[in-house]
């Protein structure tokens, strides 16, 4: 490729060996594709956050006075669609999965680098369609696109947004396929399944859901667009369809999608807690298999979103039972993380603060899930602010804390620069405090019955809503700070010259250059040790570089 090539004197890295725009937009390098995703989803995160800020400002007073109800409905739809489909689902897999997976298993790239780049283009095309739909008047269906409202009643560019989500879904499928094949076939010699970092196990479980679940929601949403456009009766009872069928199909993906968001975060937390406690993750096998258990059982619980729809009581009981069961692997992970800290050497650096914050918020999110797994209380709480609080604790408190932990932990490896530690710690604290102030009052509001997606509400709930809005401004500041100081650090941050600034274990820290070489490893490593081998400080690395580069075929077991 005729692009500007590196002319410096130092060893080139993946960031500076080629610098033209084309070298970025046509790159097959998993690390550069990760950066493309990082920049894209950061923009979407800010857009989704702006919509959230408008929602909270409206809810600062009981009356609907800042926005019209129509604009308000479009705002929560914008917030949901952008945050779910354009931020949370790609967040950790497409950024950190892409960047780290080959490095962690000792591979030169993912199995299908071209498909990987195509994934980003599908994602951007989908995002563009969603944004066009939002800017051409917006849509007010909610991110759930419930029928028959979405298919027969809602105005606006619903079909365009749906096609956008459809395309973004395929980006997610491509990433999932890539990771599954990469993990199966491209592990370095000696990198057996039970030597894999737990982040890789989490990505494996996530990829299973992406590949098996996403096609279902993609087709379902397309059917909504078909019913909308051609008036073919699928979900609208006036056309002979069944609106509840839509909910079954939608949640068959969208409940597992929650695990697409949280499983990668759990993988990050395993890495960070281990690295900053300087100890092997306790109960490695239990943590690894709990990811798979969540992915598998998570496919069988979708009906718990539908206890109030009039779905068969017996079906409901089965769904409730399985929902209680799926809670157990999360409990196993949490206890194992605690045991990892036990007798460790705990360093309170910024990534660890986010990881501890994750545990605090995820535990509250998980335990309030119990009220919702229980059928009798679920019906009272469903579609109230209790649900809103619960899923924000899991998907924001959990997934985004995990994302921020990952961003700070691997930032020096991705950029070669260190962010200012003090600002990092401050932001972590602000996010934790602001988050709780924003969302904890919503549990109380929800138990009192405040419905979600309400533009106005009874006077007696004003105080708790004001508290929530106040908290959201602290939270917003907490999210804005990293955007500022991380960007600042790209130019002014301390240059990281050592491979392993955290003293962590893992191929990406011990064998990869401070900023990775375009081809990751000079020589394919041979792995001789388990993951997180912190027990032998006298031996610098656990890896024997092979004499010369070879392309490693996979072997299972």
């Amino acid at each position, binding site marked *: 490729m005729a692009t500007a090539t590196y002319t410096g004197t130092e060893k080139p890295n993946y960031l500076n060996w080629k610098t033209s725009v084309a070298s970025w937009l046509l790159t097959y390098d998993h690390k550069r594709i990760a950066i493309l995703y990082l920049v894209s989803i950061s923009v979407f995160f800010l857009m989704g956050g702006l919509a959230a800020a408008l929602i909270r400002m409206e809810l600062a007073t009981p009356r609907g006075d800042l926005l019209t109800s129509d604009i308000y409905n479009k705002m929560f739809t914008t917030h949901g669609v952008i945050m779910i489909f354009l931020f949370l689902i790609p967040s950790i897999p497409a950024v950190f999965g892409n960047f780290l997976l080959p490095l962690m298993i000792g591979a030169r790239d993912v199995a299908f680098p071209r498909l990987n780049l195509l994934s980003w283009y599908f994602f951007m095309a989908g995002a563009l369609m969603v944004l066009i739909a939002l800017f051409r008047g917006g849509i007010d269906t909610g991110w759930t696109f419930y029928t028959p409202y979405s298919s027969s*009643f809602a105005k606006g560019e619903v079909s365009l947004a749906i096609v956008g989500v459809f395309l973004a879904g395929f980006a997610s499928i491509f990433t999932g396929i890539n990771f599954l094949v990469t993990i199966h076939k491209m592990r370095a010699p000696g990198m057996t399944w039970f030597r894999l970092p737990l982040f890789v196990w989490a990505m494996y479980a996530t990829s299973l859901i992406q590949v098996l679940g996403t096609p279902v929601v993609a087709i379902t949403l397309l059917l909504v667009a078909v019913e909308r456009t051609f008036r073919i009766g699928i979900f609208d009872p006036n056309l002979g369809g069944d609106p509840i069928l839509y909910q079954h199909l939608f949640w068959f993906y969208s409940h597992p999608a929650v695990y697409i968001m949280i499983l990668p975060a759990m993988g990050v937390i395993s890495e960070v807690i281990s690295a900053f406690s300087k100890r092997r993750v306790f109960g490695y096998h239990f943590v690894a298999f709990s990811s798979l258990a969540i992915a598998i059982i998570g496919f069988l619980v979708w009906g718990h979103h539908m206890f109030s729809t009039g779905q068969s009581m017996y079906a409901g009981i089965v769904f409730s039972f399985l929902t209680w069961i799926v809670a157990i692997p999360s409990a196993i992970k949490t206890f194992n993380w605690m045991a990892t800290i036990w007798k460790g050497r705990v360093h309170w650096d910024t990534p660890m603060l986010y990881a501890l914050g994750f545990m605090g918020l995820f535990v509250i999110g998980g335990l309030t899930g119990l009220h919702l797994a229980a059928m009798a209380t679920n019906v*009272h709480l469903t579609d109230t602010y209790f649900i809103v609080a619960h899923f924000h604790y899991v998907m924001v408190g959990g997934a985004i804390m995990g994302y921020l932990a990952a961003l700070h932990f691997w930032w020096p490896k991705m950029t070669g620069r260190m962010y200012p530690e003090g600002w990092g710690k401050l932001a972590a604290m602000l996010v934790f405090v602001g988050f709780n102030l924003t969302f904890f009052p919503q549990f109380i509001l929800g138990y009192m019955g405040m419905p979600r997606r309400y533009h106005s509400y009874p006077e007696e709930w004003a105080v708790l809503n004001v508290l929530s809005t106040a908290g959201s401004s602290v939270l917003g500041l907490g999210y804005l700070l990293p955007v500022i100081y991380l960007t600042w650090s790209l130019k002014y941050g301390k240059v990281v010259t050592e491979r392993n600034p955290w003293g962590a274990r893992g191929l990406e820290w011990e064998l990869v250059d401070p900023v990775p070489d375009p081809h990751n490893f000079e020589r394919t490593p041979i792995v001789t040790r388990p993951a997180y081998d912190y027990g032998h400080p006298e031996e610098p690395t656990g890896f024997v570089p092979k004499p010369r580069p070879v392309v490693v075929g996979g072997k299972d077991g």
Partner: protein
Amino acid sequence: MWNIPFVPPTASEEGVSISILYWAITALAVVFGAIVLFGVIYLAVRYRADNNAVDRSNAVDSDLRVELAWTLVPLVLALIIFGWAAKLYADIYAPREGYYEVFVIGKQWMWHCQHPNGVRENNVLTLPAGRLVKASIISQDVIHAFSIPAFRVKRDAVPGRYNAMYFTPTKPGEYHLFCTEYCGTKHSEMIGKVIVLPEEEFQAWLEKGGQGLATATTSTGGGAAAGGTLTLAQQGEQTFKALGCNACHMNPNSAVKVPDITQTWGNDIPLADGRTVKGDEAYIRESILNPGAKIHKGFQNLMPPYQGQVSEEQLVQLIAYIKSLADSGTGGN
């Protein structure tokens, strides 16, 4: 400042049971949450890197016994609460007997309620204290949800199907009524109130055709109860005639051979394809709107479909009428 509510009023029998379950789960969550939160902070502080005064020997990194312990203890607790909650749900939502029935129709963006004696209310539902109530809920457009937080019950109003919800109001008073399933522009204005009256007051109110209750007409916008001299079933009979149903049904001289609708309600209907179906609200509704869907054994489908020609209100009346034919003068429930 100190009269900020933190819990909703509890005004139904079901609400009491659900609240007890809610607080039991909350207690469990607080215990586990405290173990994890304080445990994490305690461990992270005690084993901080610069603290060399702690014992770090024998730091095992796996132990089957503790894994089993923290798997099985939560599992057993989970199964206990699962059973409790599922049983309670089944007790509340499975079909119950001996109720006062109201029909609730959701539409963008109001609630329309019909009492058996013909009283109609918009965005207000007036009920007696101390009696089991069955709300049969349907939507005429998109999905809504009928939610009464003080009773801790909720049911979706789904177009094309009747959903039943049972509850027993206990405390007279006024309570919030919300639509909790997003239904379009004025979703947050699809609200109203549930008014619970002592039994005698309720009867008096019903007999006056839903009039004479100052609170019912205030502040909800169009909340005036519209009464009539006709019961719901009698309204249904009028509709039955207005739509010309009586040309074939309930007409001994009809040239067309039709199923006997006095035998529909509550009976098992044999179908032409060999199945049997229960003669309930759903079957009657479908047979009016789309008569070809389930054809009575031994009959041909000669009836035109009424899809789009009958409103949900009229369907409720017709169902009440057909039901009254079967009840043969017992006067509803």
